[in-house]
């Protein structure tokens, strides 16, 4: 290993007392616990939705007054609380380790945690009271109680607090290392959050400028179409905010965990910059059927959507190369021999390998959704939840579970409880979701609507019955898998603390080795973060100003309705 590589990678050398302070580590644990609690509760509600399709409705629908109240819980807890909490927790930690220093501000770290918890509790209360059954997309003119929008503000602010902290930490590092390359793990962490910072502006304007004042009665009417456009400005990029923390694990930790090495530092930076630039100007691909938006602009967003598919393709090949490298080092031979040589007895790895396999299918179905004309066939059908349980519901969620299998033992300094159970968890989830999504997607292709209490519907088409059964069976398998995860987590929590140096050493996090082509070969321009942020912002303007110009003046004419 060259000396230059060693210096830039000083972050990987362990100096926990210095980097991981007590004032910050409890917030990292707190964010993770909140996130996992949301996953547990949200996932459990998912089971009711799945079995409702075969007419098993536990009265009243689960613990709820109606299907949509449960569905709103499911969406909000899983799409926002689970994902935000995990990103705040994990990416704060990779930032500390990446830059080899604590986060700059204790106040921001703690504030971020309290905002997440506060937003979650407020949201849960108002949803429980059935005053905000507007689904996780909260489209106007459905109007929730103002507390719901306030909760959304809290959740977004919690991510902004973490963003601010990461940027301050980077600047503090930069002040001390004016000429060095940004450490790769710091780089991927900060680009993830800058991307989200820009993306979340849409929903911030929507909630603060339109929905909150409207729900408080300060404004009588609203403009649903403008609202949807602002929502989706954030709404596509948010999927990358869910995904990139997991990519950080795939790029940084997985190569180490399989005994291989990442191929290229420069390529990794390139990929994250592409995500920063192109995640956001694609939002109209969720609005292909919306009136009032020019078809030409829809087509531009369509093309940009295919651009943003490209870095995920690079990721697929890069990670596969790292896996093959590890498998061959472990003695795997031949075209596929290296696959079986991977550490299939390490649940942290297996969960993420299976997540990657499932994600290929998620990518393919995503292309179906993105293609303007083909989208018309599946728009708002059950195909869509079929697709995103492969992506966020598995590529992200199952990877997070995999990460927890080393991160939680490390945080608690307690060995993982029953790795065997954890392995079964991963396999059951992967096989379960294949069945589940197969059901949803075939139902969708047979015109089955999403967001519908299908067990109660007075209509049905050929093919739906099989689809519903597959959805229900897959959903139950996923629920069993989820239960296993929590058994493993609670068991780990109750385990004895690691005492001896060997025991503790076994819990060390998988910190990355320098890539085969390290940072000395990377273009310096990749590190110009301010510049790339500016370019990303300009791209947003280019993609959205014409949309707004062709749309405005806004029509604030819709009063709020309560449809539940």
């Amino acid at each position: 290993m060259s000396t230059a590589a060693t210096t830039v990678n000083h972050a990987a050398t362990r100096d926990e007392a210095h980097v991981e302070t007590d004032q910050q580590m409890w917030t990292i644990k707190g964010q993770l616990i909140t996130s996992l609690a949301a996953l547990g509760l949200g996932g459990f509600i998912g089971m009711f939705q799945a079995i409702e399709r075969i007419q098993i409705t536990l009265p009243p629908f689960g613990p709820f007054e109606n299907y949509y109240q449960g569905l709103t819980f499911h969406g909000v807890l899983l799409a926002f609380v689970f994902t935000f909490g995990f990103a705040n927790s994990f990416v704060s930690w990779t930032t500390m380790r990446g830059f080899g220093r604590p986060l700059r501000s204790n106040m921001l770290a703690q504030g971020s945690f309290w905002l997440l918890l506060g937003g979650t509790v407020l949201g849960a209360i108002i949803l429980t009271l059935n005053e905000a059954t507007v689904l996780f997309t909260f489209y106007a003119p459905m109007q929730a109680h103002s507390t719901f929008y306030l909760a959304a503000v809290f959740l977004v602010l919690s991510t902004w607090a973490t963003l601010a902290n990461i940027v301050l930490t980077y600047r503090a590092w930069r002040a001390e290392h004016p000429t060095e390359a940004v450490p790769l793990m710091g780089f991927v962490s900060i680009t993830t959050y800058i991307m989200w910072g820009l993306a979340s502006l849409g929903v911030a304007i929507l909630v603060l400028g339109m929905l909150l004042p409207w729900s408080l009665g300060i404004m009588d009417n609203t403009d649903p179409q403008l609202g949807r456009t602002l929502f989706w400005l954030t709404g596509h990029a948010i999927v990358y905010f869910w995904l990139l923390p997991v990519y950080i694990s795939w790029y940084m930790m997985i190569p180490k965990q399989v005994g291989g090495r990442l191929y290229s530092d420069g390529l990794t930076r390139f990929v994250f910059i592409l995500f920063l630039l192109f995640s956001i100007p694609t939002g109209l691909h969720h609005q292909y059927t919306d009136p009032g938006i020019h078809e030409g602009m829809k087509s531009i967003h369509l093309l940009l959507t295919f651009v943003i598919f490209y870095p995920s393709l690079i990721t697929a090949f890069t990670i596969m190369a790292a896996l093959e490298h590890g498998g061959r080092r472990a003695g795997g031979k031949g075209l596929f021999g290296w696959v079986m040589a991977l550490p299939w007895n390490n649940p942290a790895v297996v969960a993420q390998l299976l997540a990657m396999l499932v994600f290929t299918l998620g990518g393919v179905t995503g292309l179906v959704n993105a293609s303007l004309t083909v989208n018309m066939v599946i728009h708002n059908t059950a195909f869509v939840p079929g697709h995103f349980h492969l992506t966020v519901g598995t590529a992200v969620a199952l990877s997070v579970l995999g990460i927890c299998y080393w991160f939680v033992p490390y945080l608690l300094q307690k060995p993982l409880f029953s790795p065997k159970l954890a392995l079964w968890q991963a396999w059951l989830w992967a096989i379960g979701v294949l069945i589940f999504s197969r059901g949803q997607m075939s139902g969708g292709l047979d015109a089955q609507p999403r967001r519908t209490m299908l067990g109660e519907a007075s209509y049905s088409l050929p093919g739906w019955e099989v689809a519903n059964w597959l959805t229900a069976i897959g959903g139950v398998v996923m629920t069993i898998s989820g239960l296993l995860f929590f058994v493993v987590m609670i068991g780990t929590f109750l385990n004895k603390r690691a005492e001896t140096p060997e025991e503790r050493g076994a819990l060390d996090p998988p910190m990355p080795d320098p890539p085969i082509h390290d940072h000395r070969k990377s273009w310096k321009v990749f590190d110009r973060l301010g510049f790339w942020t500016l370019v990303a912002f300009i791209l947003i303007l280019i993609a959205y100003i014409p949309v707004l110009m062709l749309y405005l003046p806004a029509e604030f004419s819709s009063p709020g309705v309560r449809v539940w």
Partner: protein
Amino acid sequence: MSRKLTGGLLLVFFAVLAIGYAGVMPFGDDSPREVTDDNGVAANGDPVEVGEAIYSQQCSGCHTIDGSSGVGPTFQGLYGSEVTMEDGSTVIVDGDHLLLAITDPRATNREGYPDVMPSFDNLSEDEIAGLVAFIESLE
């Protein structure tokens, strides 16, 4: 977990994938769908049946027929009942009222309900007559 078991599970995974996804959804009914007109309602003489078919496709999301609550009022027992409108007036629901409510819903607004009912004046005369007959049959 032994290598054999891992291999077996990988096999199961790919089998589910192949069987489930490769045949692009072979479980559906491949026979040609029933020939329908624009609104997907099979041409059929009985007005109540025509109305019921349209009801299940286009109204059941908002109106129930079993008396339970929905976005709009239930159709059960609606026909012939006396209802209060937003402006405080009362109306006995008859065929004309139904016709107006379906084709020009802005003109009629029931008290206590949001004014969100879409207009269905794109339906043919037979279809609207069918709907009215269907609602009448639920008296």
